[in-house]
C-alpha cells in the first residue's frame, strides 16, 4: 500500500468506527461524554493548526469558543433567530474578530504572544461576565433551543452525537488535507524557521493571521454546537482555565497531529469523569501533564502510538 492509500484507509476506519459507536453503545451517559469529546476535538484541532503547525501559542482560545456559544445562545434564546443561520453568523463574527485582532497580535512572538492572547482571552471573559443584560452574567444564560432539521430535534444524546461528530470528522478531514498541502508546509516552515520561511517567499505574518482566523472560525462553530446541546451556558466555561485545558489537550495528544488532537481531547474529557472523586486534582494534573509531556515526549502521546504502529508494520513486513 502506498503511504497515501494507507492514510485514506486509516481515516476511513477511524470515521467508520466513530459513526458506528452509537449502535454498540446505547448508554446515554457514555454517549454524552462522547459528544463532549467531539466538541473538544474540534477545538483541539482548531488550536493545533495554530499551535502545532504554525508554532504560535494562543492562551485565549476559549474566547472564540465563548463568542460562538454566546452569539448562538443570545440570538436564538432572546431574539429567536434561525439557529443554523446564527451558527454561520457567529463563526464569521469570531473569524472577523480574529482577523482584525490577529494582525497586531501575531506580530508578537513567543512569550509576548502568549501574554497578549491571555490578555485578550481575559478581556472577553470579563465581557461575558459584565454584560449581564445580554449574557445573563455569572449566573449564565438558559433556555437556548435545541437545533432541528425538518422533523428531527437534536435534543437527545444520539442525535447530538451524530450532529457533533459528523462536523468534527469533516473538520478533521479538511485539516489533514490542509496540513499536507503547500499551506501546511508553509505553516510548518514558519514554525521551524520564520526567517527562512520568509526568505522562501512565505508571508509569515499574513499566513499566521489566516490560520488564526480559521482556527477562530472552527472554535466558534464548536461553541455554537456546545450552546445548543447544553441549552445553558455560563462564563465559567470560557475562562482562562479552559484555554489552558485546550493547550493541554493539544500538547498531550501531540503538537502537529490531527489524530493527536482527538487523543488529547478524549483523554482530557474522560479523565475528569474517572477522577470525579478527586475533582480538585484536575489543575495540578494538567500542570503535571504539560510539564512531563513537554520534557519527555515532545511529540505527545500520539507519537508513542505511531512508534508502535511502525514496529507492528515492520514485523508484518518481515514475515
Amino acid at each position, binding site marked *: 500500500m502506498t503511504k497515501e492509500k494507507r492514510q485514506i484507509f486509516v481515516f476511513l476506519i477511524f470515521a467508520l468506527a466513530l459513526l458506528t459507536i452509537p449502535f454498540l453503545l446505547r448508554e446515554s451517559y457514555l454517549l454524552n461524554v462522547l459528544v463532549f469529546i467531539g466538541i473538544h476535538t474540534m477545538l483541539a484541532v482548531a488550536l493545533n493548526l495554530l499551535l502545532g503547525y504554525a508554532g504560535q501559542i494562543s492562551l485565549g482560545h476559549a474566547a472564540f469558543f465563548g463568542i460562538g456559544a454566546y452569539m448562538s445562545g443570545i440570538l436564538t434564546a432572546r431574539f429567536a433567530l434561525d439557529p443554523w443561520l446564527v451558527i454561520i453568523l457567529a463563526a464569521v463574527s469570531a473569524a472577523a474578530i480574529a482577523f482584525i485582532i490577529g494582525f497586531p497580535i501575531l506580530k508578537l512572538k513567543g*512569550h509576548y504572544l502568549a*501574554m497578549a492572547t491571555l490578555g*485578550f482571552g481575559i*478581556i472577553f471573559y470579563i465581557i461575558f461576565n459584565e454584560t449581564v443584560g445580554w449574557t445573563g452574567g455569572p449566573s449564565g444564560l438558559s433556555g437556548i433551543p435545541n437545533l432541528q432539521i425538518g422533523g428531527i430535534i437534536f435534543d437527545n444524546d444520539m442525535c447530538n452525537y451524530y450532529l457533533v461528530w459528523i462536523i468534527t470528522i469533516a473538520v478533521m478531514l479538511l485539516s489533514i488535507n490542509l496540513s499536507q498541502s503547500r499551506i501546511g508546509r508553509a505553516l510548518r516552515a514558519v514554525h521551524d524557521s520564520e526567517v527562512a520561511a520568509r526568505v522562501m517567499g512565505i508571508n509569515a505574518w499574513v499566513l499566521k493571521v489566516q490560520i488564526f482566523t480559521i482556527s477562530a472560525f472552527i472554535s466558534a462553530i464548536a461553541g455554537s454546537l456546545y450552546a445548543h446541546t447544553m441549552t445553558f451556558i455560563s462564563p465559567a466555561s470560557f475562562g482562562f482555565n479552559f484555554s489552558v485545558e485546550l493547550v493541554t489537550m493539544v500538547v498531550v495528544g501531540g503538537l502537529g497531529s490531527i489524530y493527536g488532537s482527538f487523543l488529547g481531547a478524549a483523554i482530557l474529557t474522560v479523565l475528569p469523569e474517572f477522577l470525579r472523586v478527586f475533582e480538585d486534582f484536575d489543575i495540578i494534573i494538567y*500542570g503535571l501533564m504539560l510539564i512531563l509531556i513537554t520534557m519527555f515526549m515532545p511529540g505527545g502521546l500520539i507519537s508513542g502510538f505511531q512508534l508502535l504502529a511502525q514496529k507492528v508494520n515492520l514485523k508484518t513486513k518481515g514475515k
Partner: protein
Amino acid sequence: MDNLYQYLLSGLSNGAIYALIGFGFAIIHNATGIINFAQGEFVMLGGMLALFFLVFCGFPLSPSIILSILIATVVGIIFERLAIRPLKNAKPIRLIIITIGASIFIRGAAMLIWGKDTHALPAFSGNDPLYIAGATIMPQHLWIFAVTILVIFSSRLFFNHTIIGKAMRACAYNAQAASLVGIDVRIMVMLSFSISAAIGSLAGIIIAPLTMTSYDVGIMLGLKGFCAVIIGGMSSGLGTVMGGLLLGLLEALGAGFISAGYKDAIAFIILLLILFFRPEGLFGKKETERV
C-alpha cells in the same frame, strides 16, 4: 475630591506591587530570555504562605515573612532546576508551555494544600488610619511604599556594586562571553530565579492585607506585573516602577470613575495597546533582532 484621593492612594500602592512583580519578570528575562509565566504564582505563594504561618501556625510577623520568602525562593530554585535547566536549548514554544505547566501546577498544589477560600491577611501595623498633613493613609500603604523603595535601592546596589550582581548583568548581556571569563552561567540563572521568586513572594505578602489572597490570585497579579515591566521596556529599574505606578493609577481611576467590573479589563487593554504599538515599552529602546 476625597474619593479621588482614595483612588490615587490605592492606585499608587497597587502600582508599587505591580512594579515589584515586574522586577521579577525582568530579572529572569534578562538572565535567560524567558518570560516566566509562573511569576504570578510566586506572588500567590508569598501571600498564602504568610497567611499560613501567621494565622494558622500563629507565628509572629517577622519570622512568618522570612519563612514565606525562603520557601517561595526554594520553590523558584526547584522550578529552575527541574523544569528550566533540562530544556536549556529548547524552542521557545516548549519553554512557554513548561512555564505555563509549572504555573498551573503550583496553583493546583496551593489549592490542594490551602483550599479554595479567599482569606485576608491581618495588616502588619493594624488598621487604624494615620493622619498625615490632613490626609488619611492606612499603615499598610506605608509598608508597601517603604518596601518597594527598599527593594529598588537594594537591587540597584546589588546589580551595580557587587561582584555577583555585575556577573549577572554580564550574563544577561552575553552569556557566552560571560562564561569565557569564568562566570558560571548556570548559577547566575538559578540566582535570577531565586531573586525573582523572593521579590515576587515579598510583593505577595505586603499586598495580601489590602487585597485578600487565595490560591488563584497569581494569574491576575502576574499579568499586571508583566504589563508594568512591558511598559518599562523589560528593565529592572525605574522604567518598570513608572510602568507599575501608571498602570495602578489608570486602573484605580478607571475602576472608580468608569466601572469596577471592568477594572481588570483596563489593565489588559493597556497591555495589548503597549504590545501592539510600542512593544519595546514606553521607557525602553528598540533593538534589531539578530538573524
